[in-house]
């Protein structure tokens, strides 16, 4: 292993600009003559828009334009779309309602934009926005997904009777029912997977500029996938043809899924920039983020697991109501279906599984993928059931897991996933050892001496990353392929620009992708620049989400590097006057086997460009290759997280006493970065389990709409973590990578809740386990216990 190659904890190349304040996020970009926007958003969850009076606003100082939903409707531009078609059980397509960038006729959630002011400054835009008079007729609203499809619920969209988007299912209902009939024991749980707000620290932003000279647009946008944004804005919105629209995603301050989607604001900025003939900028304030960024999770689930005499799982039945909010966001349909039910086998051989998912509209912000996207929800179902099942059967939870682990690969689950490689017991054993599981009893007694309750909980999770063979996702309804592209441009002096369709917003690609090139070509990592996030530079790419950049993006890089090496060898053969088959490339040097004839990388690159020594009719001058890589399967990272907590029964305050994570991510490019991804994922999972809660009142007002009300995890809410790995290589990509970005967020909620319920001795508590909820659960459990005694 070289100091900068695969497996080295290389310090990040991108850090210098961030630690010196030289990062360039969208709001940091300024264009000459730019204007600023303030969106007027519906204060009501559900309301007819009777009229909008813009006259007073238009007369305010500095106002350039005031545009309404009516103006947008007259522009004949298209609306926002969900790009993944899901079919109901009866074969009918999902009920996708129109989603105009500015609402006209009716607003469907608090925060739905109905008009926009464009002005010389943000302050002037805000002042004028206060003068826009919108006359609403308030309608009854529904926010609770469990009530959305019930009789008498307010109807949100004409196309979706009973607010139902689809009734979807996966698995064999009859075989599963039969498995339950023969079961020795059935564990049943009902729970809510709490709604979350992603809260990337950089608020969303867009800066749009129209150039009349070339009749083309440029959009700077805080997005995780600039090419997909361009495609949707071009092909579905109809703003401009793709070759007349450049999307630049500069430094992006966190995404976690929320910046995958195409949102109204960037569309409106583009449209307005042409209308006013000047660049138009919008940067969300945090309160806007809360009511306009797509939220995550929000499931109501009833699940049952059947066991035989030996504690073997014989069946699993799941019914979930998924809240998709007021409109279907870009990938929303896929999250509670293909990214959820396909993972319900967990790490276990479960012969029969049946899952039903009812997706509903409500008068809330749209819900879409948030770190883990479906897989944290699936893991919560499976891992809570397994843990509670073990308690009910009187088995150690690790023993019950061990009896049910998938042990032979490949393994075809009963919910379509084909697990390719793994060693689940190895991860668990390593975690148990690192955590000192054996010492738990002693630590528990010590806590009890101090009047505290101590609990331990596990999550042996599995996830599916690197989505997936394009032909398969096409069959499943996706509107896009999910391959990735790469281009390796070798300069005449041997330095390299690596272009990737992935996009970094915290993941460190500028370092890890360069490590790959450094190792392969034997050149210093400083001589590699990673280029991404600009549709004028990178030809096409699918962006970064679903922990795909390593497994899919780097595989494309490997393919491009293969081509570079192959061509370079041909050139070397001519330069060194040897047969191509005798050329060996090692440590940055081409040599002729068995001789001392050699040429180093930089000199070879120069030869490729001067083209003096090879026949250019046979070999083209230059050294630049590109590749598209389509995955052959999902990848299946898996691991074991152990959470140990201590509860103060007097206050309900839960403290995380220790955390151990042992993950199998396959090949690790940079262990420092991988550990960082685990830390961040766990923090978000712990946030979901202990702190974060998105609360709507029955009128549809978002009660938890700021950092005063929505509890983001702080430094003193979290412990230091013990993080380690085991390795089984992924057989379906050239590097053996599985992906690591979401694991922590997938494992953590179940691990925390298993620990808390272990300490409390009751399963009756939902996330977030705030001190109030923990204290109440404890009192209820004590009352029941006393009544029973």
């Amino acid at each position, binding site marked *: 292993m070289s100091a900068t190659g695969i497996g080295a904890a290389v310090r990040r190349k991108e850090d210098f600009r961030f*630690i*010196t304040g030289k990062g360039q996020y969208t709001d940091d970009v300024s264009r000459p003559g730019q204007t600023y926007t303030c969106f007027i958003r519906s204060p009501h969850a559900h309301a007819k828009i009777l009229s909008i009076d813009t006259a007073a606003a238009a007369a305010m100082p500095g106002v350039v334009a005031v545009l309404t939903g009516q103006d947008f409707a007259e522009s004949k531009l298209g609306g926002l779309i969900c790009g993944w078609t899901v079919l109901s059980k009866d074969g009918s397509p999902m009920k996708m309602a129109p989603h105009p960038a500015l609402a006209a006729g009716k607003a469907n959630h608090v925060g739905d934009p109905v008009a926009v002011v464009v002005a010389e400054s943000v302050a002037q835009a805000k002042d004028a926005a206060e003068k826009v008079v919108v006359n609403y007729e308030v309608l009854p609203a529904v926010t609770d997904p469990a009530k959305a499809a019930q009789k008498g619920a307010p109807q949100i969209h004409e196309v979706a009777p009973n607010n139902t988007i689809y009734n979807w299912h996966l698995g064999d209902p009859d075989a599963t029912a039969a498995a339950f009939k023969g079961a020795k024991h059935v564990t049943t749980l009902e729970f809510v997977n709490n709604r979350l707000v992603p809260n990337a*620290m*950089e608020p969303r932003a867009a800066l749009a500029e129209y150039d009349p000279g070339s009749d083309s647009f440029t959009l700077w946008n805080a997005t995780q996938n600039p090419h997909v944004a361009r495609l949707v804005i071009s092909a579905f919105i109809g703003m401009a043809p793709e070759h007349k629209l450049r999307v630049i995603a500069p430094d992006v301050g966190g995404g976690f899924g929320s910046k995958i989607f195409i949102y109204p604001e960037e569309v409106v900025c583009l449209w307005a920039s042409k209308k006013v003939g000047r660049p138009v900028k919008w940067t969300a304030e945090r309160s806007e983020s809360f009511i306009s960024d797509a939220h995550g999770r929000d499931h109501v689930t009833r699940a049952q697991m059947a066991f035989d005499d030996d504690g073997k799982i014989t069946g699993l039945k799941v019914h979930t109501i998924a809240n998709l909010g007021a409109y279907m966001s870009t990938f929303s349909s896929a999250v509670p279906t293909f990214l959820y039910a396909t993972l319900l086998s967990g790490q276990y051989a479960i012969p029969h599984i049946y899952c039903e998912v009812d997706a509903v509209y409500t008068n809330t912000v749209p819900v879409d993928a948030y770190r883990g996207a479906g897989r944290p929800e699936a893991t919560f179902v499976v891992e809570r059931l397994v843990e509670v099942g073990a308690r009910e059967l009187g088995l150690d939870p690790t023993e019950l897991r061990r009896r049910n682990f998938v042990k032979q690969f490949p393994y075809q689950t009963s919910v379509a996933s084909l697990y390719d490689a793994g060693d689940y017991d190895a991860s668990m054993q390593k975690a148990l050892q690192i955590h000192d599981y054996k010492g738990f009893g002693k630590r528990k007694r010590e806590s009890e001496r101090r009047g505290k309750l101590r609990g331990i909980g596990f999550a042996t999770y599995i996830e599916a990353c690197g989505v997936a063979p394009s032909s398969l996702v096409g069959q499943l309804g996706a509107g896009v392929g999910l391959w990735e592209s790469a281009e390796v441009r070798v300069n005449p002096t041997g330095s390299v620009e690596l272009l990737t369709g992935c996009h970094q917003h*915290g993941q460190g690609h500028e370092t890890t992708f360069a490590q790959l090139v450094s190792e392969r070509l034997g050149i210093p990592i400083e001589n590699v620049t990673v280029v991404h996030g600009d549709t004028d530079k990178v030809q096409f790419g699918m962006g970064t989400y679903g922990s795909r950049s390593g497994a899919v993006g780097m595989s494309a890089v490997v393919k491009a590097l293969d081509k570079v090496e192959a061509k370079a060898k041909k050139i070397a053969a001519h330069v060194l006057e040897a047969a191509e088959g005798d050329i060996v490339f090692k440590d940055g040097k081409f040599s002729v086997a068995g001789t001392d004839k050699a040429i180093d990388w930089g000199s070879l690159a120069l030869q490729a460009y001067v083209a003096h020594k090879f026949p250019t009719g046979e070999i083209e001058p230059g050294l630049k290759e590109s590749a598209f890589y389509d995955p052959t399967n999902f990848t299946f990272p898996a691991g074991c997280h152990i959470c140990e907590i201590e509860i103060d029964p007097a206050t309900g305050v839960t403290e995380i006493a220790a955390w151990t994570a042992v993950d199998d991510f396959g090949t690790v490019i940079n262990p420092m970065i991988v550990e960082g991804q685990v830390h961040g994922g766990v923090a*978000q999972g712990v946030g979901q389990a202990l702190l974060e809660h998105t609360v709507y009142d029955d009128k549809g007002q978002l009660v938890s709409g700021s950092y005063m009300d929505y509890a983001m995890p702080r430094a003193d809410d979290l412990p230091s973590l013990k993080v380690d790995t085991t390795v089984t290589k992924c057989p379906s990509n050239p590097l053996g990578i599985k992906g690591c970005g979401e694991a922590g967020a997938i494992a953590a909620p179940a691990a925390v809740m298993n620990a808390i319920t272990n300490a409390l001795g009751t399963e009756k508590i939902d996330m977030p386990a705030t001190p109030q909820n923990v204290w109440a659960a404890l009192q209820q459990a004590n009352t029941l216990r006393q009544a029973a005694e």
Partner: protein
Amino acid sequence: MPTVSMTVNGKPAKADVDPRTLLVQFLREHLRLTGTHVGCDTSQCGACVVHVNGKAVKSCTMLAVSADGAQVVTIEGLADGQQLHPMQEAFREHHGLQCGFCTPGMIMTAVDMVNRLGNSLDEKTIRHELEGNICRCTGYHNIVKAIGAGAQAMGKGGGMQHAAE
């Protein structure tokens, strides 16, 4: 419009501003010092922390006119030319940042923490002191490590008070 003048990163800065202009807007929009970020509206996230007269201040909660005559240091003024401040170096060494958005505020808070509490900071103190800074990427694990190490390094002579103060 009132005129404000202050010293920012050792250089004089002067402008006529709308009275409601916040210090962070003055820094970002008038001086184009965009390293100081705005992550929330409610003084919670700390992405906007700068030093005013040697103390950490959330620049989204201070009017530019209130900083009239002050010595202001932003993330851009922390390094001594190409020589990184030890706290900047520690964040890089310990992978204390991912997306980088909260980082300027974190580093400015960390330096202030050391200035107030000294070079030996235990984990509990660091975690408690970070209550005004939110990071969504790192889970704080490596930020806590970086600040502990940066504090030590500041004490070992790498520890200049930053040049501009």
